[in-house]
Structures are given as structure tokens and as C-alpha cells.
């Protein structure tokens, strides 16, 4: 137990030796140094600004990937279509043990892959007679019929590795209006109008890019660009930046958990499949731990036990013979 006199020195105003100190001068010099360092770094290195991807560039560079992704969307087999809350109720989403936290808060940002990504965009423009007829057929059909066409086409396209030419011509009747609709959507993307329509969804003002991001994320084009830029989560992606620039290095601990078992064990492992939730909780606890260090036994005593403070106050200890 410490005595009250020992308590005093830490909490009372310092009454020992002092030295002259000009806080305004120190602040001014520090600001000048930082400003000059920033200007120098900006002049020599600039800053990253890799051009954003668009649906137009996707449809131009990787049309078959776009086409197959659109087939997944209309069949409801894309990642976003089966995501769960907050976008839809197609699945329970990730869990944290027995808890499905996202599901508790429901579908707060509804996204309907078929309507939002395919039907609404096609309906906003004047289509070719073939696409118009296909859209009309789709709209007057019941959902069972729609799902049947879309699933069959999605399966056939997957078996053909996305190559429409490999699908037997005789099977086309099974797919109803779906191939014509997807072709219409591809043409729309290639013209550039899909980018605007996905964002606006019939509105004038719009700030929410959720639908575009989900749709683009369902394909390989976006993913491949990210891999080429070393931004994938399993390669410390969250703390990386495009080009040769430093990224969010301060997220190293967050990225670290994704690199080690059990969180990198793949989607078949419960911790791998639900790594996002577990890592968010771990980081929340560690952040709280940082703030509450003065109260954590063991940790709060480390500075005394590991004498780095002897280096920091070397001069003081020497002068005071401590």
C-alpha cells in the first residue's frame, strides 16, 4: 500500500527544478516543420487517385463477366441477392455465436437485385423492340415462371463458363425473355447510361451508391482490379493503398486478424465464415482496452516493470542520482 506522501508528487503541481519554456514558440516551430514536411511530401510524391470503375468500363473490358453477373442477379444467385440484412432477408447473414446482429436490426437498406439492378434500369429507357418485348413478357408473367426462366438460364450459362455461344440453341426456349433482357442491360451498360440509372433509381438528387457497389461487387471485374492493386483482405488490403503510397497503416491490427487462423480458415470454418463479426468485436474490445489501460491490472504496471522510462527521463535520473 502506498503512503499519502508518495501519492502527493504525481498529483500536485511540480515544485522541483524548472526550466524556461516558450509554448507559443514551440507550437509555431512545430507547425512550420509539419507544414514544410507536408508540402515537401506532396511535391515529391503527390497522392494516389486511381480512376473509379464504372459499369461502362466493366461492360467494355469484361462484357462476358458483366453478362454472367447480370444473369446471377436476375436468378437471385449473386452474393448480394443472398446477403441478408440490411439489404434483404434472403439469409441470416454472419453470426456471432448464437447472435445474428445484422438480422436483429432488419432490412433497413432494401435492395432487390432483380428489380433494382435489371428491371428498373431497363424500364427507364427506350429499348430495342426485342428488349421491349422481353421486358413486357417478364412483367406480365408470374414469379414462378420468372424464377424458372432465370434459374435455367443462370445454370446453363454457368455450365458454359459464361460463354453464350456454348449454350445449345434448342435450349433457348426454356429461358423465356431472360437472354434478351440481359443483352439489353449489357448494351445499356456499354452506352454508360446504366451508371446514372443505378444511382438515381428515378430520382433527381441521389447520394447513395449502395446499389451500384453491390452490383459491381457481385462480378469478377471489380474483384480482379482489387487483387491487382493488392487490396484484398487476405493480403492486408484494408491498410493498403493503390500504387506505391502508404495506406491506412493504423488499421494494421484490424487487418492482422484476417491473416491468421481461425479467421483465415475459409468460409467452411465457423470462424472463417463469420470472421467479420468476430474481428469487429475483438477490435471494439481492444479499442476500449486502450482507453481503459489505467485500470487494467498488469498492463498498467508494465511501464514500471519495463524500464523504458529510464531512457525517457535519463537526464533527470542522472541529475537526481536516482
Amino acid at each position, binding site marked *: 500500500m*502506498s503512503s499519502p506522501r508518495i*501519492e502527493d*508528487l*504525481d498529483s*500536485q503541481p*511540480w515544485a*522541483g*527544478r524548472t*526550466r*524556461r*519554456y516558450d*509554448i507559443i514558440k514551440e*507550437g509555431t516551430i*512545430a*507547425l512550420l516543420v*509539419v507544414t514544410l*514536411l*507536408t508540402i515537401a*511530401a*506532396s*511535391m515529391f*510524391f*503527390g*497522392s494516389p*487517385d*486511381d480512376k*473509379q*470503375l464504372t459499369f461502362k468500363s466493366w461492360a467494355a473490358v469484361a462484357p462476358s463477366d458483366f453478362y454472367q453477373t447480370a444473369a446471377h442477379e436476375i436468378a437471385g444467385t449473386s452474393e448480394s441477392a443472398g446477403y441478408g*440484412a*440490411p439489404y434483404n432477408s434472403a439469409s441470416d*447473414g454472419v453470426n456471432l455465436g448464437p447472435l445474428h446482429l*445484422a438480422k436483429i*436490426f432488419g432490412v*433497413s437498406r432494401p435492395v432487390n437485385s432483380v428489380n433494382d439492378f435489371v428491371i428498373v434500369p431497363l424500364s427507364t429507357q427506350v429499348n430495342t423492340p426485342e428488349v421491349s418485348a422481353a421486358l413486357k413478357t417478364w412483367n406480365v408473367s408470374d414469379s414462378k415462371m420468372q424464377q424458372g426462366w432465370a434459374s435455367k438460364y443462370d445454370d446453363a450459362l454457368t455450365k458454359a463458363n459464361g460463354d453464350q455461344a456454348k449454350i445449345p440453341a434448342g435450349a433457348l426456349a426454356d429461358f423465356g425473355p431472360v437472354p434478351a433482357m440481359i443483352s439489353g442491360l449489357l448494351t445499356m451498360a456499354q452506352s454508360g447510361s446504366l451508371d446514372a440509372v443505378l444511382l438515381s433509381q428515378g430520382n433527381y438528387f441521389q447520394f*447513395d*451508391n*449502395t446499389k451500384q*457497389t453491390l452490383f459491381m461487387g457481385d462480378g469478377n471485374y*471489380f474483384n480482379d482490379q482489387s487483387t491487382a492493386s493488392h487490396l484484398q*483482405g487476405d493480403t492486408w*488490403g484494408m491498410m493498403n493503398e*493503390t500504387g506505391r503510397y502508404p495506406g*491506412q*497503416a*493504423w*488499421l494494421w491490427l484490424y487487418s492482422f486478424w484476417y491473416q491468421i487462423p481461425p479467421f483465415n480458415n475459409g468460409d467452411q470454418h465457423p470462424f472463417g465464415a463469420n470472421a467479420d*463479426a468476430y*474481428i469487429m468485436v475483438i477490435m471494439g474490445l481492444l479499442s476500449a482496452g486502450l*482507453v*481503459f489501460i489505467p485500470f487494467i491490472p498488469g498492463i*498498467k504496471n*508494465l*511501464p*514500471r*516493470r519495463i524500464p523504458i522510462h529510464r531512457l*525517457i*527521463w535519463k*537526464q533527470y535520473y542522472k541529475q*537526481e542520482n*536516482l
Partner: protein
Amino acid sequence: MSSKEKELWTAKLRGVWQRNLPVEKLLPDTQPAYVSSWIYTFGVLTLSSLFVIIASGVVLAFEGPSWYHLSNVGHFVNSLHFWSVQLFFIFMVIHLWGKFWMAAWRGRRVATWMTGGIAFVASIATAFTGYLVQTNFDSQWISFEAKDGFNSVGVGAWFTVTNLGQMLLLHVAFLPLILGVLTILHVLLVRAKGVVPPIDAFDNGKKSKGART
């Protein structure tokens, strides 16, 4: 001061302020002799970086989010913002580690440590939203990846990283306000409580109790 004046909230607040943070503490011209290590400069360097971040950020905000893609001047100002953030975090992490090894929460300085710790977390949130509003490929990918983390714990119901409008408002208004208030509180607490004495410091028969709180 009359007893009626003492009842005034304003007078009470003034009294508390004057007792805890007289102008001599706020703008000192001396400091304890033990404050003589280079590690002490990283606090003021962090603060200076924050000034440069805010100054460059204000220019970017006035010109709008697309400006820096289209103009060389805009790109340079964006670079100033980018590098000042990098310097800010480098300085802040060194400052944080320095204060940890000093056990700087000693002597009723727990609030100083905690405001600093919360400011560190708030800085990460502010920088993160900054990366989301770059309106380039990096921000597209970060928003796509990060949504899963926030959605996994239900936060995505309110904090939608793919919503550029929401992220922009949080980045230029709400989070800087929070960070600014935390920083001011932290600096005022540093001035009010003074710089923590060395572990095992000894002065006039009184000894520092070291790392124990």
C-alpha cells in the same frame, strides 16, 4: 464576491476554471526540468498536423469532392491533406507509446489519457471516412469491403459506408467536430494537470508512486 454572486452558475464555472486552469498554466513560460526528452515534441507535432489537415480539408470542402480529380491545384491540396494525415498518425502513435511508457495517467491524469485514447479512435474513424469519400477506385473498394464488417455487427443499419452522402457529411462535419472537442479537452487537461513526473521521481521528501494509479 457576494453570496448572491456565488450562486450564479457563471460565477461558479469561472471559479472552477480559474482554480484549475489559470492563464499561467494555459500559457506557461516554465516547465519541470524533467521535460527534456525529444519524445515530448510528438504531442505538439500531432496537434500541428491536425491544423494542416483541417486547413487543407477546408479548402477541399469549399471546392467540392470532385475538384481534386480535375485540377492540378486541387490534386496538390489533396496531397497536402493526404500527407498531413500520414504525419498526424505517425506522430500520434509515437506520442501514444511515449505516454504509455511514462504511465502518463498517474496523479489524477486518467481523464487526460482517456480523452487521448478516445481521440485516437475518433481519428481512425475520421480518416476512414476520408478514404471512403475519395471518389476513386480505392474508395469504391474500401466501401465494398468495409460494409461487411459493419453489417456483421448490425452497425450497417445506420452507418452505411456505401452511402457517399452520409460518409461525406460525417467526414467534413460530425467527426471533425467530435475530434476537435476531444483534442481541445485533451490539451486543456494536459495544461491543467501538468506533465506527469518521472516514475520514482523524488522531490522534497515526496516520491512519485510510479505506474500504480
